[in-house]
């Protein structure tokens, strides 16, 4: 039994979660604090991957990241990075695909914080970065955990975009969901059952851990 597709899925999900956390943290903070007229536009852009068919997102990413495009050509010529049918391409595509799953829980966590608590931190002489790291994030642990876990789980489970951008190159782009699709096509239902069962169990355990943690946090602060 080849478990490399699972390892690839987790590597992809881990990297995507890490990169997205770094990108989405300032974006979610800005969205939660701004009164700019551009806010709805940015929010709509960020949420697009939730409603777009993965094939549409995959198609546009394929067009933009291919070596024939300006961006794809630039990355290949300057950095030697191939952005389609490669693991790097999968990471880039996953960052687009999973962006709302990181931004939205963080934004809602920031928005739910007591505004006076943030102001008390500024009055204590702390700048915005110190306030976010030492006051905001520790006081919105359920939202933080939801953002990290859901982004990770959603990336593990993605199929359409990775198939379009990465294809199915063993140990390079053949993640678990793509491997299951291929097994079904080859009518290897036994293997497909094992792979699907593992995915089902892991997804359930991940979601269960989020809900248990959030329930404990709410009990701790007296909401339940």
């Amino acid at each position: 039994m080849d478990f490399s597709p699972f390892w690839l899925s987790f590597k992809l999900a881990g990297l995507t979660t890490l990169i997205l956390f770094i990108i989405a943290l300032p974006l979610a903070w800005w969205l939660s604090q701004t009164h700019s007229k551009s806010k709805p536009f940015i929010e709509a852009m960020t949420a697009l991957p939730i409603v777009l068919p993965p094939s549409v997102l995959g198609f546009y990413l394929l067009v933009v990241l291919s070596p024939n495009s300006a961006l794809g050509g630039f990355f290949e010529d300057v950095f030697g990075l191939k952005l389609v049918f490669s693991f790097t391409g999968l990471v880039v595509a996953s960052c687009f695909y999973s962006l709302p799953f990181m931004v939205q829980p963080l934004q809602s966590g920031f928005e739910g914080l007591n505004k006076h608590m943030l102001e008390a931190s500024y009055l204590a002489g702390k700048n915005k970065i110190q306030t976010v790291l030492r006051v905001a994030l520790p006081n919105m642990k359920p939202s933080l955990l939801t953002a990290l876990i859901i982004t990770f789980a959603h990336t593990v489970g993605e199929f359409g975009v990775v198939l379009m951008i990465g294809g199915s190159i063993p140990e390079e782009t053949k993640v678990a969901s793509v491997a299951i699709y291929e097994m079904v096509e080859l009518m290897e239902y036994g293997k497909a059952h094992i792979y699907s069962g593992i995915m089902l169990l892991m997804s359930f355990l991940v979601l269960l851990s989020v809900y248990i943690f959030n329930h404990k946090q709410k009990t701790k602060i007296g909401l339940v």
Partner: protein
Amino acid sequence: MIDINIQKELHGSLGKMHLKVNVHIRQGEFIALMGESGSGKTTLLRVLAGLVQSEGEVRVEGISWKHLPVQQREIGFVFQDYALFDNMSVEENLLFVNDDKALACELLEMTALTALKARNVTGLSGGQQQRVALCRAMMKRPKLLLMDEPLSALGEQMRKSIQEEIKTLHERFSMTTIMVSHNASEVFTLASRVLVLNQGDIIQDGVPKVVLQSRSMQSVEVLALTQNAEKTIATLSQYGELLEVEVDAKTQVGDKINIEIKAEQI
């Protein structure tokens, strides 16, 4: 000396209004800021703290704070809802402001919080949380302490006890203090000067006894009536207290009646 000369357009309870404040405050004064809801009291505190922008400027000991960010102002601020850092213990809340353990110890001792210093703030009572908020505001050794109705959510006994602690802290650190309050007895106990805001303007400025006495004749709305065969009692709200006065039997809820309160009765 603190010179406040600010203007700001506000959207108050009665529509658009202009906050116009021009006052001089001496070092160490304890100012009580009174006035109806929506008259601009909290906004004035927030402008002084640098949390909202305004026209004009605030000068502290001759230095303009106009372009000074909130982080660099020597301000202590006590919020009405305490706004403690829930992820920290009592002591950590204080040390977050200034890593001065000796000062933190002294403040916790003065407010009888030493035994609770390792406890998380979410497990404290309202009175204890208010004490922590007060200590936290003092950790910067502020030139100006601002308090937005700090005791309004507390019961009478707790309110009196914390009033004493505020008084002790003020005597110990001699910081200039501005406190928003609706409670006349609190103002009498703590303040050396009272400013009354109305629709963004300071309409009265003086020592508590004189200001509250001059405000004694007032038109107040009847909130409730209790009638029996002999008399009719109206319930009114003034200075944050509920008052009961005997009125004419024809009086109805919602009517405005004139009352006179003598300072010594408050």
